[in-house]
């Protein structure tokens, strides 16, 4: 979209922006109406109505697509420059982890309807104010990226829904009551016709309406005919695999594309067999299964979803990182001088050249020389997968690991810890890269084993 001049761009996006702000306005008024009925919340309801009014004004300001007016309803260059300057793979990844932890810690406050609503408004206004930026709009409105924007909002909503139910149940359990799902009126048997069948029917109709609307409003992309000589830059996998493609920054294809995905699938399948906690079956709760909950949220929300978002919106040509409002310049170069662990060890610490296998030597001799060269990495690897879990069980006697070991037995305990350690490999490699410019822990290019 960068070929477009700014005025043309505005005239294209203004209609959408106007509709978008009208939607926010309507949402806020409905919410205000709904809150109005609650005692003592009439002031808040009034505030939400005002937010709706502001959004209405924004809608009016955007409708003409006049650059002099739109200027006032978009982030100015200083803010955008500031956000871009702050953003990097490091701040982004660490930031999303911190956000998850903060959300977890303050979940009781965050799920309150008015607070959550504030969050939703924040997200929506941020989107709106950003959309007047050409570079931001160019990636977000790309047809195949629109579903991800939807995913973000849906995940936010359902996370809120589940968390608020869990918080409510946890409060009840702490008071010695049953979780809501276990109370008498909820356990009562009802006939599936009409209670469930009608719900399903309504879901089906609503979904059909959404799909029709989506299909009418947004045309499916069709680019130039395939050509095996013109490589687009960036070349991206479909969006749901972009988390894996992002892992290629840190791992070679055999890890990022084969081993780690297989471990994800295996790990997911293993969940029911390693989570021995009998509580929290059939109702929303967090307190009764904190460990499982946090592990899953870390894997799903931080490692899977935020990496997809990064891979889609923030990775441009040559897979370089670009802030939200940066132009995807295909000539930007990122310096890459990463160093292998063996290099650090032999050259840096021992002041010796790397041992080099003689290419004509017998296979076994070559392997031995390579093993010598990579000894530190190999020891680390064995220590990580084989020795760390027992150490954890010995060291953490009370809280997590030793009790787990006792209840699970050796094999299940090792499977569980090893799966978790596999999951941790990615953040560990990220950290090593950011802090030590670490390229490979074990580098055996002779046999394509770089790790």
């Amino acid at each position, binding site marked *: 979209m960068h070929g477009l001049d700014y005025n043309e761009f505005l005239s294209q996006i203004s209609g959408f922006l106007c509709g978008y702000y009208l939607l926010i306005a309507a949402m806020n008024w409905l919410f205000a109406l709904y809150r109005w009925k609650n005692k003592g919340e009439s002031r808040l309801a009034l505030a939400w109505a005002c937010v709706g009014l502001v959004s209405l004004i924004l809608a009016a300001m955007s409708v003409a697509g006049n650059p002099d007016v739109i200027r006032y309803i978009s982030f100015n260059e200083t803010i955008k420059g500031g956000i871009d300057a702050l953003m990097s793979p490091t701040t982004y990844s660490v930031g999303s982890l911190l956000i998850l932890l903060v959300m977890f810690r303050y979940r009781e406050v965050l799920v309150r309807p008015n607070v959550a609503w504030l969050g939703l408004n924040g997200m929506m206004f941020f989107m709106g104010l950003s959309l007047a930026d050409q570079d931001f709009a160019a990636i977000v409105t790309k047809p195949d990226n629109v579903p991800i924007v939807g995913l973000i909002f849906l995940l936010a909503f359902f996370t809120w829904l*589940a968390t608020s139910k869990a918080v409510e149940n946890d409060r009840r359990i702490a008071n010695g009551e049953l979780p809501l*799902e276990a109370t008498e009126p909820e356990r009562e048997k009802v*006939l599936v016709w009409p209670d469930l069948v009608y719900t399903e029917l309504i879901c089906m109709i609503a979904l059909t309406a959404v799909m029709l609307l989506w299909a009418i409003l947004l045309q499916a992309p069709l680019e130039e005919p395939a050509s095996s000589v013109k490589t*687009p830059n960036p070349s991206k996998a479909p969006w749901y695999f972009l988390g894996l493609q992002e892992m290629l920054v840190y791992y070679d294809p055999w890890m990022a594309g084969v081993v780690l995905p297989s471990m994800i699938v295996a790990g997911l*399948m293993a969940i029911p067999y390693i989570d021995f*906690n009998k509580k929290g079956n*059939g109702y929303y709760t967090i307190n009764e299964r904190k460990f499982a909950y946090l592990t899953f949220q870390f894997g799903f929300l931080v490692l899977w979803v935020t990496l997809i978002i990064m891979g889609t919106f923030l990775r441009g040509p040559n897979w370089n990182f670009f802030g939200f409002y940066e132009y995807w310049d295909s000539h930007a170069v990122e310096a890459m001088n990463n160093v292998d662990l063996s290099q650090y060890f032999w050259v840096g610490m021992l002041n010796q050249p790397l041992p080099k296998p003689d290419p004509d030597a017998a296979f076994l001799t070559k392997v031995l020389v390579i093993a010598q060269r990579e000894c530190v990495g190999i020891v680390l690897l064995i220590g990580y997968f084989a020795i760390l879990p027992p150490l954890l069980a010995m060291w953490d006697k009370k809280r997590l690991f030793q009790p787990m070991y006792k209840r699970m037995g050796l094999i299940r305990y090792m499977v569980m810890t090893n799966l978790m350690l596999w999951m941790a490999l990615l953040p560990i490699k990220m950290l090593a890269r950011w802090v030590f410019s670490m390229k490979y822990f074990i580098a055996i290019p002779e046999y*394509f084993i770089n790790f």
Partner: protein
Amino acid sequence: MPSLGDIIRNSQIWKSIFRHPAPVDRRNRIVVMLTNFFLHLHPVSAKKQGIALSYTWCMGGVTFFLFLVETVTGVLLMFYYRPTIEWAYADILTLRDATSLGILRELHRWGAHAMVITVWLHMYRVFLTGSYKPPREFNWVIGVILLLLTLLLSFTGYLLPWDQLAIWAITVGSNMARATPFLGYEGPGAQLLTVGGIDMITNASDARFGLLGARFVGEETLNRFYVLHCIAIPLGVALLLAVHFWRVRKDGGISGPM
């Protein structure tokens, strides 16, 4: 004077299809669930908590519905589409420019994206309610396979329009197979698989070749992905869905507190 509705409901045709009066009273609401083939996926009665929209989000149901939408729109798309390099792209163009009700491709494409999203949300819900715990462990495993197949369905379909977006996304994705340990010719250990000094794993015999049917994304790949996308994977999904739904019932219905 009987109303038109009564006449229809008392006709022999109607009665041959629905073997009971309208489900307006308790008895017939039970009978309808037992005698209708499609409805008998469901139990007759269920705990209120388990069928609450706020509990299941109806996400499994929505995913299933999207699968049906994909099946119907997919069959219609097959009427217009020939999976060859000469025709694939041209057929998509025709479909866009010359077909009445021209949102078929949109419905199919956005439906696929939506299905990927809803299957994740469904898994998310099942996790958050701890519904994978005994006795539902195995249904979770089946679910994971369904998740994988859903992604593969989407992935194989991505190639079919045969535009730049398609072949390069599939090229990037399938390049990974080149690095499969032992089975990819750039994978760890592949060099070790030799017989009498001849490499067994070459770029014309490795995992990627098996996936693409060639050394790069080309004619053979298009054919292979077409068959996978339209026949093999949907059949697999349909079979597993049958097991999945059956198991929901056999594992005691939608989960709830013990």
